[in-house]
C-alpha cells in the first residue's frame, strides 16, 4: 500500500519540519497583523499548502522558477514608465513573486463589503450630479463637493449613458493590527491595475503551475468576460465597437492600456483618433469615419474635452462633452466619476451610507475629518501628532503636501506651524486621517521569507447581474518594513492575489479565454493614426537599413586592400552626406570617421541613432498591434545604438557593428511581418518599406552608375542592393553596366529591385479600403500604374540620372497621396483667446 497511515504521517511530519525551516527566520513586525503567520508565529491554515510546496521545492528551485517568471514578464514586454525619470525611461515590471493568499470565507466578506461600497458611491454620484439632496439635507457641505477638481460642472444634470456612472470600481485596502480590513482609498475615475493583475497572474501561474491548480485558486478570466460583455452591451449601434481611450504612450501605465485593449478585443484609441459629428463620436479609420459608441477611458475626465473641460488638454476630443450630453457616447466610467475619489468624501460616507442604502456599512473606510467644518478642524488640530494630514481633493497639493499626505508626528516645528496656519485659513483644502498601520505579507528575498507591508487593490465591474468582484487583485508591496500606510505612496513591487475556492475551480482557464476573446475580435478598420505610424515605421526601418548598408559597405571597402578605386569610397561618402548621416564639418577627416559618425551621432537626423529612435517612437504608439518580440528587438536595438564606438575604432569594428545592427533590423522586420496578419496594418508597414526601398535604390543607382562607371563601383551597387549573390549566380563575368542595372532596377523577380518594389506597392494599393473593384482608380493608383509601366517600357540604358530622379519624385508624391487619403487624423490647434481689457 503506497499510502499507509504510517507513511502519510511521516510525510506530514517531514513537510511540517520543512515548513518550519522555511519560517525559521520570519519575524512579523511588532504590533502589526501578518497575513501568513499568527501572533504565535504559526502559519495560518490557508497559507500552509503554499508554504509546504515552497519548502518541498527548496530555495534553488524556487529561485529558478521566479527567474523564469521574470523572464516571461520581460519577454511579454510588461513595462511601466517612470514619470520622474527625466529620460522618460521604462522599467521592468517589479513582481514580488509570492502571491497574497486569501481564504474563501474572508474573501466573501470582503467582496460583499466592496459591492455595497460600489453601490454607495454610485448613489452618491447620482445625487451630486443630479438632485443634490445630500448637500441640501446637510449630509455633506457643498464645499466638500465644489472643491474637487473632479466636480465637472458641465456634466451637472447630465444622466449617464446606460443609467450608471460607475462600470468599473477599485478600492485600496489595508488590514489594521486587529485584523479588520479598511478602505484606504477609492478609485472611480479610471481604475488602473486590472491589466497588471492579469499579467502578474500569468507570470506567477507559470512559476507555480501545480500549486495554483491544487490550491483551487479562482481564475480571473470570468471577470474580464463579464466586463467585456457589460461594455459591449452599452453599444447601441450594434457595431460592437468599443474603444479604450488612452492618453498615449507617455502615460506611466500605457503598457496596461495596450495590453487590456488587446486582451479585451477593444480598439486602442487616442484623442486624435476621434472626432465628434452631430453629437456622435467617430473613429477616423483608413476606411473613413466609423462610430465609436463606448469608450473605456484611461484618460482623466478633465483632459477629455478641451472645449468644455481643461482647455489646455492636447489629449482629448473636442466636443466630447457635447456628445455625452446628447447621449451619443457611453463613457466608462462616466465623466465626473472621479468626484467620489476625494479623501474629503471619506469623512461623510460612513454617515451617508446607512441613510442612502438603509443598511450599515460592512467595510469601513479609515476615519477621516474634513477640516472645512469647524468642529472637525479643531479635532484635527488637537490631535495632529496622531494623525495623517492629506489634501482633501487629490493626492498632492502645492506646498507641504507636494509629495502627498504627511504624518503629523513627522513634521518639523516650522512645517507644523505652517501647516496649522494653512489649516486654520483654508481648512477646506485638508483632511485629517487616522494613521494606519498596514499588515504584512511574505516576500521572497535571497532564499528567505521576509514580512513586508502592502496595500491590496480589488476591482469590481458592473455587469448585468450586478456588481462582480474580480477574484484576485493587485498588491503593492513596500520595499521597506515601515508599515505606516502614508509612506506607501510610491515605489515598491506588485504581487498577485490568490483567492482560494472551497471546491475545485471550474476550468474556464484564462488562456483559452484569451483565445475565445480573440476569436470574436473585430479587427475592424484600422484607425488612421495607427496606419500612419505603421507606414512611417516601415519607412524609418528601411531607411535605417539602407544607411547601415552604406556604412557597412564603406567600412568593407576601406578595410579591403583590393579596393579598386573608381571613386566608390567618395561616392559612398557623398550618399551619406546627402542623407544627413554625417556632419558637414568633417570633410577632411579620414573616411572611417564618417562611418562612425553615421553610426553614432545623435545630433544628426539622418544618422542611425536618430533613425532608430524615430522608428522606436513610431512603434511605441502602435505597440498593441506589434508582437512583443518585434517590439523588444527594436527597443534593444535603440539601446545598442547608445553604446559608444571608440573614435580610434578600426574599419573592421565599424563593419562588425553595422553588420550586427543590420541583423537586428532584419530580425525586427521578420518578426513584425511574420507575426502580423495580412490586414491593413501590415499593408501600411510594407508600403512604407517598399516606397523607402524604392527611393534608396534610385539614389544608389544614381550615385554609382554613370557612363564611366567601373566594375568596382557596380559591385558596390550590387552590395548596397543586396544583389551580389543573384548576380554571381546569373552572370559568370565581371560586373557590367546593363546586367547590373537590369538586376537592380528592372528584374521583377529580384526582391531588391526597383520594379519589384513598385509591383508590391501597386498590389498593396489595390487591397486597401476604397480601392479595387468598381472604384475608379485613385491618384496614387494611377501613379503606381505609371511607374510600373515605365519599368516595363524601358531598357537598362534608358535609366539615366534624370529619369531616376523623376522616379524618385514620383515615389515621394505617391507617399504624399497615400498620406492625404488615409492619414486623416490631425492635431487640432486652439483658437487664441481674447484678452479682456
Amino acid at each position, binding site marked *: 500500500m503506497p499510502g499507509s497511515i504510517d507513511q502519510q504521517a511521516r510525510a506530514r511530519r517531514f513537510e511540517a519540519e520543512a515548513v518550519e525551516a522555511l519560517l525559521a527566520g520570519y519575524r512579523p513586525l511588532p504590533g502589526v497583523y501578518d497575513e501568513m503567520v499568527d501572533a504565535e508565529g504559526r502559519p495560518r491554515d490557508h497559507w500552509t499548502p503554499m508554504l509546504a510546496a515552497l519548502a518541498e521545492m527548496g530555495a534553488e528551485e524556487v529561485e529558478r522558477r521566479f527567474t523564469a517568471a521574470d523572464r516571461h514578464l520581460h519577454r511579454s514586454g510588461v513595462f511601466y514608465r517612470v514619470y520622474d525619470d527625466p529620460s522618460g525611461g521604462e522599467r521592468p515590471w517589479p513582481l514580488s513573486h509570492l502571491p497574497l493568499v486569501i481564504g474563501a470565507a474572508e474573501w466573501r466578506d470582503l467582496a460583499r463589503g466592496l459591492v455595497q461600497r460600489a453601490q454607495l458611491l454610485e448613489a452618491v454620484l447620482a445625487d*451630486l450630479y443630479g438632485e*443634490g439632496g445630500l*448637500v*441640501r*439635507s*446637510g449630509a455633506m*457641505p*457643498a*464645499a466638500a*463637493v*465644489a*472643491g474637487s477638481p473632479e466636480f465637472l*460642472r*458641465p456634466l*451637472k444634470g447630465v444622466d449617464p449613458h446606460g443609467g450608471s456612472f460607475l462600470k468599473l470600481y477599485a478600492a485600496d485596502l489595508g488590514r489594521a493590527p486587529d485584523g479588520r480590513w479598511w478602505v484606504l482609498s477609492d478609485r472611480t475615475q479610471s481604475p488602473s491595475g486590472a491589466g497588471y493583475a492579469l499579467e502578474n497572474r500569468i507570470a506567477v501561474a507559470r512559476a507555480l503551475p501545480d500549486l495554483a491548480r491544487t490550491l483551487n485558486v479562482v481564475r480571473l478570466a470570468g471577470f474580464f468576460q463579464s466586463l467585456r460583455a457589460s461594455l459591449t452591451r452599452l453599444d447601441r449601434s450594434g457595431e460592437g465597437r468599443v474603444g479604450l481611450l488612452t492618453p498615449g504612450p507617455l502615460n506611466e501605465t500605457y503598457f496596461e492600456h495596450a495590453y487590456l485593449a488587446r486582451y479585451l478585443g477593444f480598439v486602442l484609441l487616442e484623442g486624435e483618433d476621434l472626432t*465628434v*459629428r*452631430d453629437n456622435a463620436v467617430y473613429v477616423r479609420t483608413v476606411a473613413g469615419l466609423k462610430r465609436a459608441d463606448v469608450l473605456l477611458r484611461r484618460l482623466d475626465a478633465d483632459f477629455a474635452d*478641451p*472645449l*468644455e473641460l*481643461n*482647455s*489646455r488638454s492636447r489629449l482629448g476630443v*473636442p*466636443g466630447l462633452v*457635447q456628445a455625452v450630453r446628447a447621449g451619443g457616447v457611453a463613457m466608462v466610467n462616466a465623466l465626473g466619476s472621479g468626484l467620489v475619489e476625494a479623501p474629503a468624501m471619506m469623512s461623510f460616507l460612513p454617515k451617508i451610507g446607512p441613510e442612502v442604502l438603509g443598511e450599515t456599512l460592512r467595510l469601513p473606510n479609515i476615519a477621516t475629518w474634513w477640516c*472645512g*467644518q*469647524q468642529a472637525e478642524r479643531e479635532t484635527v488640530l488637537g490631535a495632529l501628532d496622531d494623525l495623517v494630514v492629506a489634501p482633501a481633493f487629490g493626492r498632492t497639493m*502645492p506646498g507641504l503636501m507636494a509629495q502627498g499626505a504627511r504624518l503629523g508626528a513627522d513634521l518639523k516645528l516650522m512645517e507644523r506651524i505652517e501647516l496649522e496656519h494653512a489649516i486654520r*485659513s*483654508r*481648512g*477646506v*483644502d485638508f483632511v485629517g486621517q487616522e494613521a494606519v498601520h498596514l499588515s504584512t505579507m511574505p516576500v521572497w528575498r535571497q532564499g528567505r521569507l521576509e514580512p513586508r507591508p502592502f496595500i491590496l487593490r480589488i476591482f469590481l465591474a458592473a455587469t448585468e447581474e450586478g456588481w462582480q468582484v474580480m477574484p484576485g487583485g493587485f498588491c503593492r508591496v513596500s520595499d521597506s518594513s515601515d508599515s505606516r500606510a502614508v509612506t506607501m505612496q510610491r515605489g515598491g513591487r506588485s504581487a498577485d492575489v490568490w483567492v482560494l475556492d472551497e471546491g475545485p475551480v471550474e476550468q474556464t482557464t484564462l488562456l483559452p479565454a484569451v483565445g475565445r476573446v480573440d476569436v470574436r475580435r473585430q479587427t475592424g478598420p484600422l484607425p488612421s493614426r495607427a496606419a500612419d505610424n505603421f507606414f512611417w515605421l516601415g519607412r524609418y526601418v528601411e531607411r535605417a537599413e539602407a544607411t547601415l548598408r552604406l556604412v557597412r559597405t564603406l567600412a568593407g571597402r576601406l578595410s579591403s586592400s583590393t579596393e579598386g578605386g573608381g571613386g566608390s569610397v567618395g561616392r559612398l561618402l557623398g550618399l551619406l552626406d546627402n542623407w544627413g548621416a554625417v556632419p558637414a564639418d568633417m570633410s577632411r577627416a579620414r573616411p572611417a570617421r564618417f562611418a562612425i559618425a553615421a553610426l553614432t551621432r545623435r545630433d544628426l537626423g539622418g544618422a542611425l541613432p536618430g533613425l532608430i529612435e524615430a522608428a522606436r517612437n513610431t512603434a511605441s504608439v502602435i505597440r498593441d498591434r506589434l508582437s512583443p518580440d518585434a517590439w523588444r528587438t527594436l527597443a534593444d536595438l535603440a539601446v545598442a545604438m547608445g553604446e559608444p564606438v571608440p573614435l580610434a575604432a578600426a574599419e573592421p569594428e565599424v563593419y562588425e557593428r553595422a553588420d550586427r545592427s543590420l541583423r537586428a533590423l532584419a530580425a525586427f522586420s521578420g518578426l513584425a511581418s511574420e507575426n502580423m496578419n495580412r490586414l491593413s496594418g501590415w499593408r501600411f508597414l510594407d508600403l512604407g518599406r517598399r516606397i523607402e526601398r524604392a527611393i534608396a535604390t534610385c539614389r544608389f543607382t544614381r550615385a554609382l552608375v554613370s557612363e564611366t562607371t567601373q566594375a568596382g563601383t557596380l559591385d558596390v551597387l550590387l552590395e548596397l542592393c543586396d544583389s551580389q549573390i543573384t548576380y554571381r549566380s546569373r552572370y559568370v563575368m565581371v560586373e557590367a553596366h546593363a546586367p547590373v542595372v537590369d538586376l537592380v532596377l528592372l528584374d521583377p523577380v529580384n526582391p531588391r529591385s526597383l520594379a519589384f518594389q513598385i509591383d508590391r506597392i501597386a498590389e498593396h494599393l489595390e487591397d486597401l479600403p476604397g480601392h479595387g473593384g468598381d472604384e475608379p482608380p485613385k491618384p496614387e493608383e494611377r501613379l503606381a500604374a505609371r511607374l510600373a509601366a515605365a519599368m516595363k517600357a524601358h531598357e537598362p540604358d534608358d535609366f539615366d540620372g534624370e529619369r531616376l530622379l523623376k522616379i524618385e519624385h514620383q515615389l515621394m508624391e505617391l507617399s504624399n497621396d497615400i498620406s492625404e487619403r488615409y492619414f486623416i487624423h*490631425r492635431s*487640432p*490647434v*486652439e*483658437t*487664441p*483667446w*481674447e*484678452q*479682456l*481689457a
Partner: protein
Amino acid sequence: MKYDIHQTTAYGYAYPVPVARHVVRMVPVDRPRQRVVASRFTVEPEPVEWTESFDFFGNRVAHIRIESAHTSFTVRTQARVEVDPADLPDPEATPAWEAIRQSVAESLDLGPDSPVHHIFPSPLVRICEEITVWTAESFPAGRAVLDGAVDLMERLHREFTYDSKATEVTTPPEEAFAMRRGVCQDFAHIMIAGLRGLGLPAAYVSGFLRTEPPPGKERLQGADATHAWLAIWCGTQSGWQGLDPTNALRVSTDHVVLALGRDYSDVAPVGGVLVGSGRQKLRVEVDVVPILDPPAAPAKPDRARRPPA
C-alpha cells in the same frame, strides 16, 4: 440705464481652415438687476452644427461646428440691455470676513449662484502665497468683508499700472502680480487669487462698461474691448458685490454682465479648436451706447475715471 451693445469678434487665418469647432459666450442674459430686452447673434461662415444652451453658471453658450474651408470666422452680437442701480451696502456693515469664510465652507448650497464654487483654485487662478500675504494686509482680524475688499481694490488701483503691453491672455496672475502691471483681466485674477487665499469667495465677471466720450468729441466707435472685474460674496444679506479694480469702482449701472465663472477660462467669449496651421489674427470691437430717454443729456465733463480701452 439702458444700453445698446454691439460686439464683433473676428478671427483671420493665414491658411484656409477646413474644420473648426467653437464655444461662444457672447450673448448677455437676464440676471439680478439686468434684463436683456433684445439680442441677436450671428456667425460667419454658416455652421453645420449649432447648439445653444446655458452652462453651469447660467451663461448662454453656443456650440458651433464649421465644416467649410474658411479664412475668417466672425461672431457678431447685438443686445439691448437694461441695468438697474445696485443697492450698494455700507462696506463696514457687512459681516466680518472670518464669518463669511466659515459660513461658505459649511454652506449647504451647491447651486450655480453659491459662493462655494469660488473659494477654490481654478484653472487659471492658483492660490499663491505672495498674493495672499499682500491681500491679508487689507484683512485684519474682524474687519467687515466688503470693507476689506474695497480697501484691497483701492490698493491694487494705486499700486498697479495699467499696461496693455505687459501681459498676455494666458499670463498667470502671480506673474502680473510680480510686475505690478497688467490689464483688467490680470487685476481681476490677482484680486480673486488673494481673496481665495484667505478662503473668501470671489468670482470672475466679464462684460461691458459704459464708455463716455471725452468732452466735445465724438464717441469713438469700436475703440473698446470686453471688460472684466470680480464679484465678492458678502453673506446672504448683501450677496454678491461687484468690484472693478481696473477703475477702482463698485459695480452698479456702468457695468453690463456678459458672463461669470471661476476665472477667465469659464467665460472666454470664444474658445475653440480647429484644423489648420499658420497664424491666427484676432480683432475685437465693442460699442456700448447708452440710450438716453428722454433725449441725450450732456455727458458729464468731469468724469475722471475713464476706463482704459
